């Protein structure tokens, strides 16, 4: 339980606040860099000009506005959502291994979307976020129930194992559906690897409002997560209605995960990596961890996506592949430390 220390350990409010402008600055920088770098290199100045003073006749401005800006916005939203969801999950389940992808939520959302589009034929974009939410919620509940049944209760290990089992099961079903319906496979193949390339930004119209609400909700609930992370008895003793709080947090996590999956496909390990990194700097007070995780997650995904775009020039690596490559070693390290 090394990661769960007393709240406010070594975090002075003044010091905690001071990080925000720094992170915001880095975020803006990463955002501009993400837009500037690519097949056609643009200067940061051009990017800023295109964003502030758009001129339709300038080709570079069109590149920025139509091709690169949507992707950068997507990276910010998805990165912030997933790492905030991960931070909340780690607090609620008191589990350093919690992550929307590891605990099966992402697989549930992806499964629901695949079933809806290929079996039920629901291709309208309006439904996709809601279907994804249903899937994520169902998967979360099943994983939690299974882990509860394991002798010893919902420990990090049993949660992770049951998450892995559910993910394996759902991905087997997804594969069966694919084989039965080869036409949708071409469309879904790239989506299912998780990435930000060629995403439909208009989906943001439907996904944006719930994500914004959930992000705000997550930040508002964060102070009480600190208490919850000390254990249910302690939280109840301090007057927190743990049941209601858990339901609210579950709703926030499900909405954030499902909308991220709808936007960018299943991206693993962002929710695992970022909260742990943030915790190194701000201690274990979720009041700070949660907003910092959102900012750092946005920066992280912008950075990863920039790497994905420029690593092997003519081609592009899927973003989800890189997040897994970075996240999996950290997971291994956490398991090593945790079960030593």
């Amino acid at each position, binding site marked *: 339980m090394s990661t769960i220390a007393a709240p406010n350990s070594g975090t002075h409010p003044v010091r905690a606040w001071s990080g925000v402008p720094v992170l915001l600055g880095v975020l803006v920088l990463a955002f501009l860099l993400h837009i500037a770098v690519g097949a056609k290199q643009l200067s940061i100045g051009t990017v800023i000009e295109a964003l502030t003073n758009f001129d339709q006749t300038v080709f570079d401005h069109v590149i920025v506005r139509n091709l690169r800006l949507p992707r950068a916005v997507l990276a910010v939203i998805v990165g912030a959502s997933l790492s905030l969801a991960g931070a909340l999950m780690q607090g609620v389940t008191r589990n350093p291994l919690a992550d929307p992808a590891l605990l099966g939520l992402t697989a549930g959302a992806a499964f629901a979307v695949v079933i809806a589009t290929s079996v039920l034929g629901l291709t309208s974009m309006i439904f996709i976020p809601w279907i994804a939410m249903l899937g994520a919620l169902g998967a979360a509940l099943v994983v939690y129930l299974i882990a509860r049944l394991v002798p010893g209760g919902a420990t990090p290990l049993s949660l992770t*194992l049951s998450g892995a089992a559910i993910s394996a099961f759902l991905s087997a079903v997804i594969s069966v559906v694919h*084989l039965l319906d080869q036409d949708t496979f071409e469309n879904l193949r790239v989506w299912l690897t998780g990435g930000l390339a060629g995403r439909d930004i208009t989906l943001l119209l439907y996904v944006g409002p719930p994500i914004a609400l959930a992000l705000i909700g997550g930040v508002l609930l964060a102070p009480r997560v600190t208490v919850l992370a000390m254990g249910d008895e302690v939280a109840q003793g301090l007057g927190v209605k743990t049941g209601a709080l858990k339901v609210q947090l579950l709703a926030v996590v499900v909405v954030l995960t499902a909308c991220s999956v709808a936007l960018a496909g299943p991206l693993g390990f962002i929710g695992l990596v970022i909260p742990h990194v943030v915790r190194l700097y701000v201690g274990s007070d979720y009041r700070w961890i949660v907003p910092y995780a959102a900012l750092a997650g946005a920066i992280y995904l912008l950075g990863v996506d920039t790497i994905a775009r420029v690593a092997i020039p003519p081609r592009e690596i899927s973003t989800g592949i890189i997040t897994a490559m970075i996240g*999996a070693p950290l997971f291994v390290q956490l398991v090593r430390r945790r079960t030593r």
Partner: protein
Amino acid sequence: MSAPARHWVLRSKSERIALRLPVRALVALALLSLVLLVTCCVSLATGTYGVALNEVIDTLRGFSISRAIDNVVWEFRFPRTLAAALVGAMMALSGAALQNTTRNGLADPSLVGVSQGAALAVVSLTVVFPDVSGALRPWAAFAGAILVALAIQGLSHTRQGGSAIRFILMGIGLSTFISSITSALMTYGDIDRAMAALSWLAGSINAASWSDVWTLGTWCTVLLPALLAISRSSSATRMGEATAISLGVRTKLIRNLQLAIAVALAAIATSVVGPLGFVGLIAPHAARRIAPAGIGLNLLITAMVGAALVSLADLVGRAAFAPIQIPAGLLTALIGVPLFIVLMVRSRSTASH
């Protein structure tokens, strides 16, 4: 087992050699062989080109009914059926050996990353170096699998010795890492090769040919006796490392040998049909449930269960959605995951570590 199991006792005349064979296990073995045989015959008869069951039996006995039937049965369906049975047996034995070495009822080659290591090696061969001959596949698969196995062993061993649950979680972490590389190759490889690799990755037996059967058969005849040979010593390691050491077993050597054989079995099976998930998990548990027996007989029953399971999965996957073939690996995963969950819920080891 409430009542003590009945045994047949076989003695040679001078009573130098005596075998005490549990009746129930022998009956189970016979029944499983029968199931396997029936499944194989039905599998030979099922397909787009209809062949009656008695025609299949006649063809197998050497009577030629027609060129077409000969062709279908001998060239297409027979190798596939044999490959399914062999692969099932190998995966089951690999799982049993893994469960023994790690003393972990949840171990399975596809869960601890061994299959994924083999898969990455094979996918990189098919996608990146398509000109390399297929004969190299088993070796590449073995190399990939053994590297992953060594990495997991190294990572999960600390000064306090290895922990069973850490082994599984390490495997999950590593296999995610490896699959991400595999999917990178898949997404950006040529679409035709990627499709070929995809159906292979789902654990499909439909492309099995006679050369595959020979590969599998050869390795099986090498590895099965080896596994049986070391299984006697390993039955002591089941009782815990300390007990085994005090009984005079060289635990480290046995452990490493067993692990190597488990990896080899899984890697070779994977190189032919792709990662077949959860067979190695299901079969040993089923075998233990069907008939408690000594470790040698238990391994035989395990192999039989695996063979019957994969043959059935292949048959169902082929027949259920007739023109479309569902790879056997997906069906075994669909059966295996619920079982994994049941085992997890029942286990005590998950909580105590």
